[in-house]
């Protein structure tokens, strides 16, 4: 037996004698209060008999939600869930800046304060390994627990796969447990201001080189053509993991680049390969020549806000970021925003990274059966169709809604939106290598990107990053 374990026992015995009971139980088993029973089967196995929406009548499900148009549409429709099932839903809503802090602390605290919550696919990599997320696979496969009309084949397959993982660093997505369900999502494409493109006689870029050129041209010429203070392209630049995953990662992947190489279960950082260094230099150069001023403070809000305020000629980010500015009455640029898949890679690749707002279940929930009914309703055809038509729940995670005539009519007034979506959808997937230190790695990556933008040599900065990450990730 190793020395640490022995020390720990002695130490705990000592503290136990001195400290009050809560101290011991808070720490003694780890502050996650790691008291879930291991090895037992899924609670889904307890559900038998014919499927019944009213199975959990009278129960209450507690949800933690992020302030978002998807959430607004969900809340507006909650009545129909309660009518259908007799289950009440209570919820807390937090803005995204605080949402994940809140959720993380709550899950780490080891309580079942919330039965269900919103999360992204990347969060599965952080929340999955400690056992905080319920594997929804057994629930989906149990026909007593899941209605036939839920129809898992209807989801875009890349989305369902993105929330599946075997919890092993570097193991590909799409195998292992289903730790969340896709609910609403974003592809990363280029949106542009049609006015400035028309006035300057420009066409959307088809290659990365053209995009860099185009961004510079807009920044030079647009202010003189009646677009006061307009620059070329808005992309995120703040010191946050969120800077890497939209436009940057999409273009990176289209250039055939990887974040890590995996060999025999070992991850090796690849952000400093000669090709990646060259790409990073080009990206920083594009931002310097055609990007926003004070780029290093740019988040989703500054980027999309500038497109709406007619300060950015293009936006390389989530299609929904541009959509929320493009809808009628949302901004001065409403009605003047068009969509384009963005530049192709050298081999014609339109590989695209994505963000999926997913819904997950707390592994410690005491009301899993009711929570599951909620999850299947919220990701079901009926609610999602209503949310897409009456609310702003786009992009649809279900193929049936993407094909739906009423949905297409609703989106048709946005030039290129549906076409762009359909062009990239099959090549859109999570382009990162799944691993638990994702947030550390991408935050450092963003900081490195800022330094390259600030004039430091891309090679030495990225070598330093790779060096730092190789000891942390794996």
């Amino acid at each position, binding site marked *: 037996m190793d020395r640490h374990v022995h020390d720990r026992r002695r130490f705990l015995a000592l503290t136990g004698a001195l400290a009050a009971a809560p101290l011991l139980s808070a720490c003694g088993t780890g*502050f996650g209060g790691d008291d879930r029973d291991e090895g037992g089967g899924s609670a889904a196995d307890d559900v038998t008999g014919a499927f019944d929406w009213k199975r959990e009548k009278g129960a209450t499900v507690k949800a933690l939600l992020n302030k978002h148009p998807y959430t607004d549409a969900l809340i507006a429709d909650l009545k129909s869930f309660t009518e259908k099932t007799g289950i009440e839903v209570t919820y807390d809503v937090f803005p995204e800046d605080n949402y994940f802090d809140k959720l993380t602390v709550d899950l780490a605290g080891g309580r079942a304060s919330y039965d269900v919550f919103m999360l992204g696919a990347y969060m599965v990599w952080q929340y999955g390994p400690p056992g905080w997320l319920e594997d929804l696979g057994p629930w989906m496969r149990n026909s007593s627990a899941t209605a036939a009309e839920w129809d898992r084949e209807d989801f875009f397959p890349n989305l369902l796969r993105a929330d599946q993982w075997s919890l092993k660093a570097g193991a590909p997505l799409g195998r292992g447990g289903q730790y969340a369900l896709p609910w609403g999502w974003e592809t990363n494409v280029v949106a542009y201001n049609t006015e400035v493109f028309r006035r300057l006689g420009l066409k959307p870029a088809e290659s990365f080189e053209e995009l860099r050129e185009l961004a510079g041209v807009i920044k030079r010429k647009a202010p003189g053509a009646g677009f006061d203070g307009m620059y070329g392209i808005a992309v995120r630049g703040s010191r946050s993991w969120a800077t890497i995953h939209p436009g940057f990662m999409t273009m990176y992947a289209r250039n055939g680049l990887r974040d890590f190489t995996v060999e025999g279960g070992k991850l090796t950082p690849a952000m400093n390969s000669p090709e990646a260094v060259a790409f990073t230099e080009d990206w920083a150069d594009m931002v310097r020549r055609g990007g926003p001023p004070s780029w290093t403070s740019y988040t989703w809000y500054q980027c999309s806000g500038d497109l709406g305020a007619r300060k950015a000629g293009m936006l390389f980010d989530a299609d929904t970021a541009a959509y929320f500015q493009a809808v009628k009455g949302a901004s001065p640029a409403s009605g003047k925003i068009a969509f384009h898949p963005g530049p192709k890679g050298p081999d014609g690749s339109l590989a695209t990274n994505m963000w999926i707002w997913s819904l997950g279940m707390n592994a410690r929930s005491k009301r899993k059966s009711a929570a599951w009914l909620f999850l299947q309703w919220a990701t079901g055809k009926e609610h999602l169709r209503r949310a897409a038509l009456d609310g702003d729940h786009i992009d649809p995670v279900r193929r049936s809604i993407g094909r739906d005539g009423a949905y297409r009519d609703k989106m048709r007034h946005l030039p290129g939106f549906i076409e762009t979506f359909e062009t990239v959808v099959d090549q859109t997937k999570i382009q990162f290598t799944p691993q638990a230190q994702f947030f550390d790695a991408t935050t450092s990556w963003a900081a490195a990107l800022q330094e390259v933008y600030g004039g430091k040599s891309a090679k030495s900065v990225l070598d330093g990053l790779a060096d730092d990450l190789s000891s942390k990730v794996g």
Partner: protein
Amino acid sequence: MRKRLWGWLADAALLLYFVFALFPVAWMLILSLKPADQLFSTYFSFTPTLDAYRTVLGDDEGIPFVRFFVNSLVVSLGAVALSLVVGLPAAYASARWRFKGSEHLMFTLLSFRFAPELTVIIPLFVLYQKLGLFDTYAGMVWVLQLVTLPLVVWIMRSYFADLTPELEQAALLDGYTRRQAFFKVALPLVRPGIAAVSLLAFIFAWNNFVFPLILTSHEAQTVTVGALSFLGGDRPKYHLTAAAALISVVPPLLLALTIQRYLVRGLSFGAVKS
């Protein structure tokens, strides 16, 4: 002549500072009066509207701001009251008697004010969940003692120290008990100090962000966390945040204007002789 020139220069410098100090507040006021679609397309000429205030106060965004406002009031006032009840006797004792360990205790109390919130936030979260204090008024009042108690003790201690003991001794000779001397003689004399310290403690409790962010969720959430909620969603609604922030300035401002005379002394931690 030269003196007058200096006077003008001094006034100009002062004015410059106040432009710096007040412009952001004025800008928040402007933001809060803008319609949503003119937030970024206009600077100073826009169509003013009270919509932002209506939205914030009418809970239209699904954010029950009025309830957060009431929560903030309850929690801040509760924290100040508890700090006074507990802190006044302590301050009195340490000012009147030099006893073993008093300086250490005083310094430890002060040092709480400087402790990084992150040290305690995760342990507190775990603890509160176990004790059922999470998302409750009681839990917030307790944790806010970190902010308010050191203020109360340190300021009130020097107020009591400034008070000559002879007054209380005279009262004792008149047959007052110690307790009566404290309540009937000492306390009324330091009333200005109590007013000032209450205001200060109230402001700091009211503006606290990290504790309510992590330790409350639905029932006991406060305005600082609530005001930020308007920045989520499809587009950041800065006009709503500005309106919410300005609304939440009202209680401390009213308090400040009422007892400004006392405030000056309170802010100096009682070091100032009036």
